[in-house]
């Protein structure tokens, strides 16, 4: 084995996968469709490679992106793999666990069940976009204060659901929170503390207009 092929412990799993895929794509797939928009930053090539690509404009956390994507790409994969916004988690990829919850035009959506191509021009908010600079969103702060997680895998989805729930004015009683947050599964069973965190954040946010 030559030196350059040897295992490099400094390469992350993600870089290795992206490198291997890029090598495969370069060998087999023609260049994607050109997509240009003066208002948007440079087009980001789709990860994974596809014989057919399409242009789509997404506004993610206020930032416009002109992407060239596989028409079959879900919003979740586009966020994670193409835009490297890995805060949104892929749990079941079936719409059953809620880990991939994001906001599309302010409403909760399961990003694993949406195609990115459906979201042309839509405002998408992910967990990366709810803090105000270094200042955590009150719901994020409440999750830390109340220890609202154990492993943390469901947390970004729980927080995105909770933010929307509070904004809709629904999180007024614990029973309401429990009922309306039931689409977000937590395998560790941190539900009681999540519930307390949401109630606490609701108390602080009520009427503040955030």
């Amino acid at each position, binding site marked *: 084995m030559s030196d350059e092929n040897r295992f490099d412990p400094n390469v992350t799993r993600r870089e290795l996968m992206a490198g291997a895929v890029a090598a495969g794509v370069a060998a087999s797939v023609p260049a994607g469709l050109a997509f240009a928009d003066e208002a948007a930053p440079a087009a980001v090539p789709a990860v994974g490679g596809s014989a057919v690509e399409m242009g789509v404009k997404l506004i993610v956390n206020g930032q416009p992106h002109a992407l060239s994507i596989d028409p079959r790409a879900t919003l979740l994969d586009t966020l994670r793999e193409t835009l490297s916004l890995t805060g949104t988690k892929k749990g079941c990829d*079936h719409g059953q666990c809620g880990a991939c919850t994001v906001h599309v035009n302010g409403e909760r959506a399961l990003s694993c069940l949406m195609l990115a191509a459906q979201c042309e021009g839509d405002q998408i908010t992910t967990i990366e976009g709810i803090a105000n600079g270094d200042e955590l969103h009150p719901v994020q702060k409440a999750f830390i204060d109340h220890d609202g997680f154990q492993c943390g895998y469901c947390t970004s989805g729980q927080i995105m659901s909770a933010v929307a729930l509070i904004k809709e004015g629904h999180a007024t009683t614990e029973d309401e*929170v429990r009922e309306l947050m039931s689409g977000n599964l937590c395998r560790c069973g941190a539900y009681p503390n*999540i519930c307390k965190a949401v109630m606490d954040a609701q108390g602080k946010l009520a009427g503040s207009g955030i």
Partner: protein
Amino acid sequence: MALTEAAHLDEKGRYASADFGGYHLPSHADVPDIEVEVINAADENFGALGSRGGVGELSISGVAAAVSNAVYNATGKRIREVPITPDKLI
């Protein structure tokens, strides 16, 4: 484990409850307030550190048995297989 989660196999040995649609985890609405009580006493028979080992795994083992006891108390039926679903009581 005690009430909802059953890994069903089909006749060919494949999992029939292979996703969260078939393998039911408790959700927010299923879980009431939980009170944690710490037993503040060393148990040196169990280990040199005086703790009862483990963090979550050991403490969760007793829950299915406790739920089973509660079902026995309520119905008079002793169910020895989890999950304890209504069909086992009929």
